[in-house]
């Protein structure tokens, strides 16, 4: 068996050969080339990089994945029906390995002033629209995967919610790892723009058709202008053999509000990066996260909230439930820039270890360059409250059910924030199902 180790060069070579949309568009060529140089310079992440200290991507680099830049023709209506959220009425775009599947997408009845489209189509037809938006919310020094995503930009969802529009239905973006056993790499690149005073709710779902090895390298940029509100739900539930690197990069204007909830239910190695820049006063971000880790999976959440302006508010609560020999990483960074007075920021990470072999590394990091601020953070790693377990058992509830109830309650604090009833019920069901038998940890 050859232990091929793939490198940034492999992906740079693949990029050169890829048939990407709107090549020849000057601004886009420049951006893709800049991203190429970035990737060349920084390479794929290694544990020597501070932000990847606890997450070794060797399982990913053991294979060379094949970047997808055009449609494979996959359009399995039955599969789509099987994963439909019961009762959820949405505008929907479906992507197979990062490329839009038009036949499975439907945005009928979209109000005037709202665009829900494929990034590839917009780039081909009217690329100037995206020139000032695409890439504008990215971190200044992105890691190798984000740079890789920017060097391709093959497709993804483009949402533009016009001024003052309150979108009547949620937008559901379904990203499917569609090809079995082919080591495919999907790189959706999404752009969500909330114009002044608009309201919208977006659900990003990442799923697999079969239990196959795949890599998803997804980037979503969110730009909220004054007074805009966005509820963003990101649900990662790919196959247990999948690798997933995801980014949510947002910049928030005055009095805007972003509620982002990230739920990781499956995958063998998952890394999520979140960056939120609070660029004007009155902006509010609420980050919530829930990760369920089982088997030998590894889930890493890196979040960074940057207060660039005075009087902005950030809240963050990430909760993790770890079983078996799984591993989780949480790194929550908060930066309060000089001049960002009256910043109000809270961060919390709580982890429940259900097995002695599970492990978590949690690290809060506050960088405060202003003096009139309110910042707090906390992190806990613990087991179930044995007194509560006994209390339930002494009422006749069996031990594994008692542990299941308490574990589910731990997750409930995140799930109950999801306002869409159908989505919440679905997730609640998924979580219950996965926690249905929680055995005792002998400590």
């Amino acid at each position, binding site marked *: 068996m050859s232990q091929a180790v793939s490198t940034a060069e492999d992906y740079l070579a693949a990029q050169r050969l890829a048939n990407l949309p709107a090549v020849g568009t000057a601004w886009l060529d420049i951006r893709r080339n800049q991203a190429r140089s970035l990737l060349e310079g920084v390479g794929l992440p290694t544990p020597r990089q501070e932000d990847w200290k606890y997450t070794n991507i060797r399982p990913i680099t053991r294979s060379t994945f094949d970047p997808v830049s055009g449609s494979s023709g996959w359009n399995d209506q039955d599969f789509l029906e099987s994963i439909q959220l019961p009762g959820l009425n949405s505008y929907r775009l479906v992507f197979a390995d990062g490329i839009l599947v038009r036949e499975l997408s439907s945005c009928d009845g979209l109000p005037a002033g709202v665009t829900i489209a494929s990034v590839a189509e917009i780039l081909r037809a009217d690329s100037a629209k995206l020139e000032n938006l695409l890439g504008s919310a990215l971190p200044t020094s992105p890691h190798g995967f984000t740079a890789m995503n920017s060097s391709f930009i093959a497709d993804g969802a483009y949402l533009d919610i016009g001024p003052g529009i309150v979108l009547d239905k949620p937008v559901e973006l379904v990203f499917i790892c569609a090809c079995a056993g082919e080591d495919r790499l999907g790189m959706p690149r999404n752009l969500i723009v909330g114009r002044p005073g608009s309201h919208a709710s977006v659900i990003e779902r990442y799923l697999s058709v079969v239990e196959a090895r795949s890599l998803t390298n997804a980037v979503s940029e969110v730009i909220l202008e004054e007074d805009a509100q966005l509820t963003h739900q990101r649900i990662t539930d790919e196959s247990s053999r999948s690798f997933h690197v995801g980014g949510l990069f947002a910049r928030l204007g005055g009095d805007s509000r972003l509620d982002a909830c990230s739920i990781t239910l499956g995958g063998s190695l998952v890394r999520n990066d979140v960056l939120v820049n609070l660029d004007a006063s009155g902006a509010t971000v609420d980050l919530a996260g829930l990760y369920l880790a089982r088997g030998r999976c590894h889930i890493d959440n890196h979040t960074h909230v940057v207060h660039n302006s005075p009087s902005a508010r950030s809240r963050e609560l990430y909760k993790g439930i770890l079983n078996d020999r799984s591993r989780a990483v949480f790194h929550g960074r908060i930066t309060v820039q000089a001049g960002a007075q009256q910043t109000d920021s809270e961060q919390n990470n709580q982890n429940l270890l259900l097995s002695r072999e599970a492990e978590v590394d949690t690290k809060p990091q506050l960088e405060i360059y202003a003096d009139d601020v309110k910042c707090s953070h906390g992190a806990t790693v613990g087991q179930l*409250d*044995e*007194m*509560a377990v*006994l*209390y*339930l*058992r*002494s*009422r*006749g*509830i*069996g*031990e594994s*059910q*008692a542990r299941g*109830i*308490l574990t*589910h*309650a*731990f997750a*409930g*604090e995140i799930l109950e924030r999801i306002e869409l009833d159908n989505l919440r019920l679905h997730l609640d069901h998924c979580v219950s199902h996965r926690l249905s038998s929680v055995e005792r940890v002998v400590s």
Partner: protein
Amino acid sequence: MLNVENLNVAVADEPILKGLSLQVNAGEVHAIMGPNGSGKSTLANVIAGREGYEITSGSVVFEGQNLLELAPEDRARQGIFLAFQYPVEIPGVNNVYMLKAAVNAIRKHRGDEELDAIDFLKLVREKLKLVEMKEEFLHRPVNVGFSGGEKKRNEILQMALLEPRLAMLDETDSGLDIDALKVVASGVNGLRGKDRAIVLVTHYQRLLDFIVPDHVHVLAGGRVLKSGGKELALELEERGYGWVEQSVSPSAETAL
């Protein structure tokens, strides 16, 4: 019904119960009194199956069955109930959810059909009336933010729903106002019957005015020092525990 014989229990190698014996027959109400730290809660907890106690010798037999080898949930399913001295708060779990899970676990064990949400709500509403609790308590997380008295009522609500054969109440009367005390008493009296037994751990005669016991025991230094009828409680109220301890063992120190 319940037979505790020569029970010795230690916590962290420190003996707490030292050769305790107690017999409770069906239909009886027993009151256990005794100074702080004498082992009353320890006894109740050991019977209910709480972990962390080392049973060094002795036996606890309930209806011919060795309780000590049963898991706490199995004891509950056999009909043992303990209203805890300090009920646990469980954030994130709705009271009604726990109550329904408990009732159905016990029904299932008995071979009865599990109740659906509607039938359960009917049942629980009836019992809420009995303990004079508002329905909103059903939808709050178990005991979280409940006042001391509300927690105790919630224990009685659970008892009323589960209809145990042997109900033990560990200082359920402590900290209750007179109305709440009457509620607890009527809950307990409503459960009294020839097939059931009740053990009340209490410091106060006050409760025993409403629930008249058949037997009163004084527990001190990990043993039952004296047993008697309901008059014993009155005598204790008047004279404290010192005289009991001295009359039994002249060398014992005065505890109160």
